[in-house]
């Protein structure tokens, strides 16, 4: 029983990482109705930047963390302005292919600059057991969870208490009315990409100490993040968080209690995506889509 609870706690911690990447996906989806397949690769790229800052420029982790988030934010805005904006109003299929193109470009660049050898990434937290009641909890899990919670709180305050957060929400819900009221909708979308890149960077920097750093490290995380976003309702930030935590717990249990479950985790992600889309396409917290023909 104790082992079971410990699995759940560590599942919640990894779930926090899935939740952050899922949140990044939701931010982009709300801005422009497209799933960004390059979100994971962007996060990997950011994580490598922080790696270089720590290893070569000898910054301490938290300084590198902040610099990386700022750089990722700028990079996200740059990508939107340079690559996504020219395709404004294009069919969904086209936008999906563009983000896949971005996926291969970033993956290639990361491999070119940093190589394909697995690297050990020294994160913020040292993995140590702490006694908590009868449980042994991992400090790394707790640290990751704390970082994710702080980030969620900041995002919540940004979207609910600041003018620019309100403008972003308005721009994604009612682009035409917002434009009439003087909101610069194009820039709000770019800001959405920037924020998504920053949030994704956090997920990358939190996961890298757990799974080693390599150019393909976020691909399976991306799948779980997609599953989380779909489970929660792809338009809902709250859904992304709940979905992420749920997927984290399920995957921890699958990996532990099903023989050979480590190999089957990705397939379980696929099953979650398909089953949710078939039974409840809007997810747990999404609104059912109404299509005008």
């Amino acid at each position: 029983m104790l082992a079971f609870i410990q699995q759940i706690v560590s599942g919640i911690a990894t779930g926090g990482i899935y939740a952050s990447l899922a949140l990044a996906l939701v931010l982009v989806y709300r801005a422009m109705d497209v799933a960004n397949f390059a979100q994971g690769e962007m996060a990997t790229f950011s994580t490598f930047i922080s790696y270089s800052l720590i290893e070569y420029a000898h910054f301490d982790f938290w300084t590198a963390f902040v610099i990386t988030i700022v750089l990722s934010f700028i990079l996200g805005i740059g990508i939107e302005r340079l690559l996504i904006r020219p395709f404004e109003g294009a069919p969904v299929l086209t936008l999906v292919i563009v983000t896949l193109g971005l996926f291969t470009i970033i993956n290639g660049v990361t491999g070119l600059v940093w190589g394909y050898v697995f690297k050990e990434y020294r994160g913020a937290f040292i993995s140590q057991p702490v006694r908590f009641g009868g449980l042994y909890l991992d400090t790394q899990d707790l640290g990751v969870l704390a970082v994710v919670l702080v980030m969620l709180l900041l995002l919540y305050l940004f979207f609910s208490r600041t003018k620019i957060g309100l403008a972003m929400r308005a721009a994604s819900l009612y682009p035409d009315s917002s434009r009439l009221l003087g909101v610069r909708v194009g820039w709000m979308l770019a800001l959405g990409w920037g924020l998504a890149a920053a949030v994704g960077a956090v997920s990358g920097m939190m996961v890298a100490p757990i799974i080693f750093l390599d150019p393909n490290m976020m691909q399976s995380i991306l799948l779980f993040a997609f599953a989380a976003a779909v489970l929660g309702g792809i338009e809902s930030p709250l859904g992304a968080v709940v979905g992420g935590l749920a997927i984290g717990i399920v995957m921890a249990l699958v990996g532990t209690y099903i023989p050979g479950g480590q190999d089957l985790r990705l397939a379980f992600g696929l099953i979650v995506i398909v089953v949710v889309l078939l039974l409840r396409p809007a997810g747990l917290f999404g609104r059912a889509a109404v299509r005008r023909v």
Partner: protein
Amino acid sequence: MRRLPAVRPEIVGLVVVGGVVLIGLPTVTNQFYTFEFAKVAIFVIALLGLNILTGYSGQISLGNGAFMAVGGYTTAILVHGPGVPYWATIPAAGLLAGAAGVLIGIPALRLAGIYLALATFALALSIPPVLNHFDSFTGGHSGIVMPPVLAPFGLDLSQEQWLYYLNAGIALALFAFAWGVVRSRTGRAFMAIRDSETAAVASGINLAYYKTLAFGLSAFYAGVAGSLLAIATSYLNPDSFGLSLSLALLVGIVIGGLGLDFGAVLGGLFVVWLPYFAEKASGLQIGVFSFPGKPDIIFGALLILILFFAPNGAAGFLRRGWLWYLSLRGGRAGGGAGAH
């Protein structure tokens, strides 16, 4: 009596030249190039299938590599275990993959646009670890080795030449079949669904039937391609069918030309030869820049540029060239008859 439309002499000429090139190619190139062209034929088959699904019926698939895996493993397991002759496994591989395609196609009916992309992306990612898991069947990481394939009937062909003719012959037959399908009632239904589902349903098209059929056909092509890939390399393991394969297929068909007959052919040439030339050019110095020789970066950049500047891909250029030629000759784009 109504006259049949005459075939333009240019087309006859092009077909003859094309035939001569196809047949003569392996006699003038070396072993390595012959083998690469045999691989081109395999990718052409896979891309013909993807073109039916994405190009003609408008359903995006990032997971056709998974269907190639079904075909490849069918062949490898049948040859390695019960010792079925390799040629007999090709139709079995196609049919089994086709069945898998229909199975995936049924839930895919409910998934439109972005969701279908998500689900097939997840399919592509989850196939290699699943293959690893069932290692008593698939040999796990170490894969399955098959005996090399030799030319039959005592033909005086090298191994590569035989593989080339085998693959090119099947590719040609499947090209002709796809050509026919696209111009049939079925093909028109596919395109109607792609252009507007609502209008298609209003015109009495059975959406579920045709969408599933497109998935099945596409997977059949992918299965044959996977089978031929296993035969050509006489080895396969789960990593042969990863996400990068599925992405290469999508890149190939977009660069070749979505929804155009020759898109698959040009796409196949791109997918096989671009990495080769990128490799060759690596280390090339232009000023301070040295060329990285990383095909994925070029693939990605080309993909985005093509989408922006030439959404019909390379085949679109060819078609425009052909129409321009016709207009020069004073013929109309539609039919050649009646000029004299």
